[in-house]
């Protein structure tokens, strides 16, 4: 983890640039598959082509190819073209990228090919929420690869973020194509992920700047500009919230209802924390652990009253751009307003546990009641989003909703406090699997058969015990990439462990659980196989 001065990076938590950093421009779709065209080089040859939907793909095949291939699915990319602002990146990806990289980290790719394992990956024909298109492209790509390299015996799917969800969906829909899967900080099923995005965006708009448009954008470039306008407004809100953390001041753009809350003595940090609790954003972030406080009288009060709000703000800053781009992209794809929160009861989204644990940060029960009352559907100052029937129907029928069922040996890896893909996504899959596994064991025992092997291994990327730091004057220090926090924050060693685990599962038909493997997990650092910890599921689910 790196440290910088909180003061010198006063706006490091929040910047328009950061919110827009995920924007890329999608490549136009082609009409027919091409390739693969291979360069025939040794020791590793590269093949390229496009799938039938125009997605560019790439394959690297070592001369020592042992019959096993991995297929990578990349993460979320904005699907909005803004000429002169963002560069197109629809190129094929072969593995995870670290900061500033594209195409897949070369060392990780080499690690795989050195084992005699081939890799393939697509750029996908469309970006944004592209799960259905990506699964089809992946299935086609596996077929292309096998047709070209006929000694192929095993295929392992892997991917992160959006690609993690694609990998999970791919394994659910095409287990016959795969021997194992490695699912890294996956998106949840669309309904759950969409609710996460929309709740955050709507709550921020409703309290802090009702002039934000959020839905009903104009088609095409005009809508892109409207969305950019929203980005600017959200950024201003986040900056105002950051400035008001200590004083409790609300953004001047806040709604009348919100300003009434301010007049009632409720600080904006409590509203910020409330938004985090209603959406399910972690209260621990790269800079704020909710444990350490500045030395002195505030040592206890600071982690209770300020840290959860600051962590929420830091996490929202990382999430909000993706959420807005995802929502806008889906509106374009669905041809209208697909969001509808007219019947959402936000008061029910505050868990009993959160009401207790964050009570001080939320300024007590009376403040909680007051804040939730402003979100009442009958409050004209908090207008709900009314969806357009055709777009809503299309949204409801178009997307594959991932079931979370494990059908091939699967290793998962996720950060405890990933703000974009909360740990609860994997928690749900794990919980569902544990129930299935317990039933399968019982059934096997009843039938006098061998107990089945456990087909899911979750590697939790964990934080240090405490990590918040403070300057001599008591101000917090901004930290970067604290393990277990931020989105897709993994090391090369951790990726290599995931690769080894998945390849071992593909080779043997079951996941490794022996001492040697556990030793590898330990040596990869920062990972924990722990079925004891529990993270809340996404708010979409009622559990």
């Amino acid at each position, binding site marked *: 983890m790196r440290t910088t001065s909180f003061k010198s990076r006063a706006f490091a938590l929040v910047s328009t640039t950061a919110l827009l950093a995920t924007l890329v421009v999608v490549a136009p779709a082609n009409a027919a598959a091409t390739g693969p065209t291979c360069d025939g080089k040794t020791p590793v040859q590269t093949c390229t082509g496009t799938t039938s939907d125009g997605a560019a793909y790439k394959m690297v095949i070592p001369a020592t190819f042992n019959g096993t291939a991995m297929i990578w699915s990349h993460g979320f990319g904005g699907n909005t073209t803004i000429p002169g602002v963002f560069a197109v990146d629809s190129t094929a990806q072969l593995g995870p990228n670290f900061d500033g990289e594209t195409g897949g980290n070369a060392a990780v790719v080499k690690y795989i090919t050195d084992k005699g394992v081939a890799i393939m990956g697509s750029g996908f024909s469309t970006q944004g929420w592209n799960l259905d298109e990506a699964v089809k492209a992946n299935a086609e790509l596996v077929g292309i690869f096998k047709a070209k390299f006929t000694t192929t015996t095993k295929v392992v799917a892997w991917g992160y973020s959006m690609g993690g969800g694609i990998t999970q969906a791919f394994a659910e829909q095409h287990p016959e194509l795969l021997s194992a899967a490695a699912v890294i900080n996956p998106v949840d099923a669309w309904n759950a992920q969409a609710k996460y995005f929309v709740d955050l965006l709507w709550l921020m708009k409703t309290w802090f700047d009702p002039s934000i448009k959020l839905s009903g954008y104009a088609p095409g470039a005009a809508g892109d500009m409207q969305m950019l306008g929203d980005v600017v407004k959200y950024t201003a809100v986040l900056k105002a919230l950051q400035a008001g953390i200590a004083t409790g001041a609300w953004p001047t753009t806040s709604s009348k209802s919100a300003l009434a809350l301010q007049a009632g003595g409720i600080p904006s940090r409590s509203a910020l924390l409330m938004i985090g609790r209603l959406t399910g954003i972690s209260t621990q972030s790269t800079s704020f652990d909710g444990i350490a406080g500045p030395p002195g009288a505030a040592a206890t009060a600071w982690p209770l009253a300020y840290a959860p709000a600051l962590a929420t703000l830091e996490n929202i800053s990382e999430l909000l751009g993706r959420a807005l781009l995802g929502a806008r992209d889906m509106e374009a794809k669905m041809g209208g307003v697909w969001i509808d929160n007219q019947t959402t009861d936000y008061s029910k989204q505050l868990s009993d546990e959160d009401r207790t644990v964050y009570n001080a940060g939320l300024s007590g029960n*009376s403040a909680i009641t007051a804040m939730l009352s402003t979100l009442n559907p009958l409050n004209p100052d908090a207008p709900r989003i009314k969806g357009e029937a055709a777009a809503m129907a299309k949204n409801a029928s178009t997307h594959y909703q991932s079931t979370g069922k494990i059908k091939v040996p699967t290793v998962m890896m996720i950060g405890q406090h990933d703000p974009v893909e909360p740990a609860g996504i994997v928690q749900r899959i794990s919980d569902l699997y544990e129930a299935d596994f317990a039933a399968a064991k019982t059934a096997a025992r009843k039938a006098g058969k061998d107990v089945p092997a456990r087909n899911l291994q979750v590697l939790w990327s964990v934080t240090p015990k405490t990590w918040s730091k403070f300057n001599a004057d008591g101000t917090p220090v901004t930290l970067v990439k604290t393990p277990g926090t931020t989105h897709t924050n993994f090391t090369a060693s951790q990726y290599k462990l995931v690769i080894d685990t998945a390849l071992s599962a593909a080779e043997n038909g079951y996941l490794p659980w022996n001492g040697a493997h556990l030793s590898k997990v330990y040596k990869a650092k920062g990972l924990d196989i722990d079925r004891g910890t529990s993270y809340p599921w996404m708010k979409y689910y009622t559990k």
Partner: protein
Amino acid sequence: MIRTTRRKFLVASAVMAATALSLSVMPAQAISPRSEVGVTSTAIKLGITLPMKGSASFGYNQLPGAMKAYFDYVNANGGVNGRKISLVVKDDGYLPKQAIQNTQDLIAKDKVMAVIGALGTANNKAVASAVNLGRRGIPSLFINTGFSGFNDRKAFPTSSTILPSYIMEAKMIGKYVKDTFPGKKVCLLYQDDDFGDDALVGFDKAHGNLDFAVKVAYPSLSQGVAGVPDSWITKFKAGGCEVQIVFGVASATLYTILAAVKAQYAPKWILGSVGADIGSINPATVPYIIGATSMSFLPSVVDPKDEYVTQFKEINTKYNVGAKFNSWALIGMNTAFIAVQALKAAGKNPTRKSLLAAIDASGSKFPNAALVPLNYSQTSNVGLNGYWFGTFNKTGDLVPNDTFSYTVYTTDSGTGPVDKSSYSRPAMPAKGLPN
């Protein structure tokens, strides 16, 4: 290849047959005692997480020392079925995130059999959920809170509380105030969270039925903000309050009393059990609470004739060297005393499961210093169920009267009446060692 001679085979067969015969007449537990986490043939390891440092630690940080002292005393007298008890203590600063971390460590690294005496509603709610105590079958016993929600056996199947519920406490305060100060203007300061919610239930029409001239809710932590306690006192004075109930944590009581002194506000103080003992935080405040009413379920720590107090005081002197024997020491030692009985009741080879079952089955019969019974059963996670009322004397100790005779009240968390208790406390086992 392994070769076995016929003679060796016969001998082996005979041994196996004899073993099988002997096993068939032995209880299963004795044949193959399951190795339980935190339990060896010579030791039992327990853990606790609570604030040991920081602003929330006052008083509570004395609990582990007293608990350890009692365990050491038991260990010096043979332990529990030959096993010596150890207590791993972790400081959570009263922060939920740290309590979660600590509990994870107690379970995974220290490998304790059970957590006992952990402090706080928020911390224990967070822990029960994040650490999954229920699903994993890990006991968290005798939690130091009166939050009634922990009696939800479905949500907290392996947790139990030791204090009477805050609902019970409010009901009893209601009766006491109505009986003692009829016609007086009564006012309430309460914490605006689960703690206060329970109090409001206990005071409402269906329960304690106590009306207030002025009610002020304070958000947790606001008591430390300059000027805020003064604003409470302004409201109470304006309301003409004659009896002032404070249902808050110790720091809220402290700042309230100090603000009242400054404003020359001198009502009859009724201090809830949680936050009454401000003399231990700031001895300078003792003069301000002399004559204030509060309540306890344990005998007065200065009771010269109580056999439990006498025994625990002796143990404290020998095994908690240098530590004052005060109400915190008494609470800590009594908790350890109950824990030892639970471990004994859990069988010769105790497991987490048998420990929980033992408390359900016989926890209500465990002798202890409290003047009201424990209520553990298959349907109740709640410990004690009553209080006696007393006043703070010149040394800041709560006493019932000059003769140390107690009038103890008991009730439930529902709408049952508040009655004088007829409970007859079991005698202290010989030498303070449970049978």
